[in-house]
């Protein structure tokens, strides 16, 4: 199913749906515009180029919900996808990961991210299967193509195809807001921790009172 964004798609996102996140990057099709550093003309150039690219491609600004087509046939109503649920202060990754950092591509434990419990096919996967080592603020598909964090469902769908199909149709996952018109949809990672996707058991709310005969 092609996921194309047109001008009309863009216009359907209401401004109030666009949360003012701490995200400061402007994302084109894989083009990364780093956080502006005052004395760096190059970074400023990249920022401007990114902005122009963003405008040209009509891609939404990071932190805002992206828009995908819904419905089984692909021509259904549009729905807004919630922004990715980043932990506080974790994004952009390029705040810590600098381009000139040495990259170790052999799978290993990363001490700086010891809060991450990794239980997602641990035997065969590790960070750089999904995160890009050179473009830190992007995800990467198996093909090597870069992917915005707001479109992470495409990354998940590489392995979990039926789930992606059912998510598009509205059967998998949770929709909120309105049952007609534009629907607010959650990303896969809004419910499944991408590093440990299995649902954790919950404490149930109290059972109903038993109907006791009055004394």
């Amino acid at each position, binding site marked *: 199913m092609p996921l194309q964004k047109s001008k009309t798609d863009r216009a359907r996102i209401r401004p109030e749906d666009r949360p003012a996140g701490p995200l400061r990057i402007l994302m084109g099709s894989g083009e990364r515009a780093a956080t502006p550093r005052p004395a760096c003309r190059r970074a400023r150039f990249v920022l401007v180029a990114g902005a122009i690219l963003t405008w040209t491609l009509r891609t939404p600004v990071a932190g805002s919900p992206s828009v995908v087509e819904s419905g089984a046939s692909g021509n259904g109503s549009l729905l807004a996808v919630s922004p990715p649920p980043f932990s506080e202060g974790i994004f952009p990754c390029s705040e810590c990961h600098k381009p000139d950092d040495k990259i170790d591509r052999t799978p290993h434990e990363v001490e700086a991210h010891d809060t991450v419990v990794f239980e997602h096919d641990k035997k065969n996967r590790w960070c750089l299967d999904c995160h890009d080592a050179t473009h830190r603020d992007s995800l990467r598909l198996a093909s090597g193509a870069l992917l915005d964090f707001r479109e992470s469902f495409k990354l998940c769908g590489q392995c979990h195809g039926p789930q992606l199909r059912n998510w598009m149709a509205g*059967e998998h996952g949770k929709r909120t807001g309105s049952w007609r018109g534009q629907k607010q949809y959650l990303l896969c990672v809004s419910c499944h921790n991408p590093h440990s996707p299995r*649902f954790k058991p919950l404490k149930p709310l109290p059972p*109903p009172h038993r109907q006791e005969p009055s004394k």
Partner: protein
Amino acid sequence: MSTPPDESAVQPKLRRREVLLGLFTLAAAATVSGCSVDKKALRLFFHSHFKELSPDELSERLADLAGRYSKRFGRAVSVHATPPLEGVRFGYALDISRCIGCRRCVYGCVEENNQSRDPQIQWITVLEMEKEKGIDLQHANAYYDHALVPQPDKFYFPVACQHCEHPPCVKVCPVGATWKDPDGIVVIDYDWCVGCRCCLTACPYGARHFNWGEPNLPAAELNADTEYLGNRPRSKGTVEKCTFCLQRVRKGLYPKCVEVCPVGARKFGNLLDPESEIRYIVQNKRVYLLKEELNTEPKFFYYFGL
């Protein structure tokens, strides 16, 4: 056996003639003294059936109810009567393979729909069943109280009003206090209900609940945006049940239980819309109807998504 004592000798009986005479005297006295009878109050008390109310009468009734609720709860309460939407037939689907029995829906519903807190009324009952036995209502347990859910050998089966195409509860109501609206929602007029509870026994799903006692709803917990046929506060002696959150869905919103479900097991939409998720599920998944053999044709579809 001795003859029973003459009752009239023990307790003086009211004779019909005396009663009529008393009433007549009262009416005459009222007329003569110029004591004004509150015509509006009388009209509101002897109102017609909800479906026969003229728009003016309806708005007068809604305003009167809003005033009475506002007084009772000490805060502003609005009462609306949103008509059913055109071209809409509501359907509901629930993925049994995803439900974890956490009862978030039960309490979300109670808050949204102003059920009595004590005596407790809950429109959704979550049944715990054994995976080994399958859907077995006889051995289902609604009172489970585990530290964590889901339990590995159990599955969970929430039951509420199934909004039947042929609702047996509507069929048995002797006064026409409950009916199916054109959008498929089975509604109750709480003011028209006489509390005979025929519908409670007719419903094969145990979806209807009776206010045996005076409902107790703290003013702070009241949802003040109410609907006449939906979540307005009820009184003792009336029957109530799930309305698909009529006050929400007729405005285009999802029901509260759909919004609060943490696993996305609950699906809602317009069955007549080919692009809706409910239609996708009914067309592509194997759905299960509870007590299908009764031919009630529920519009509540259980399915296994995984």
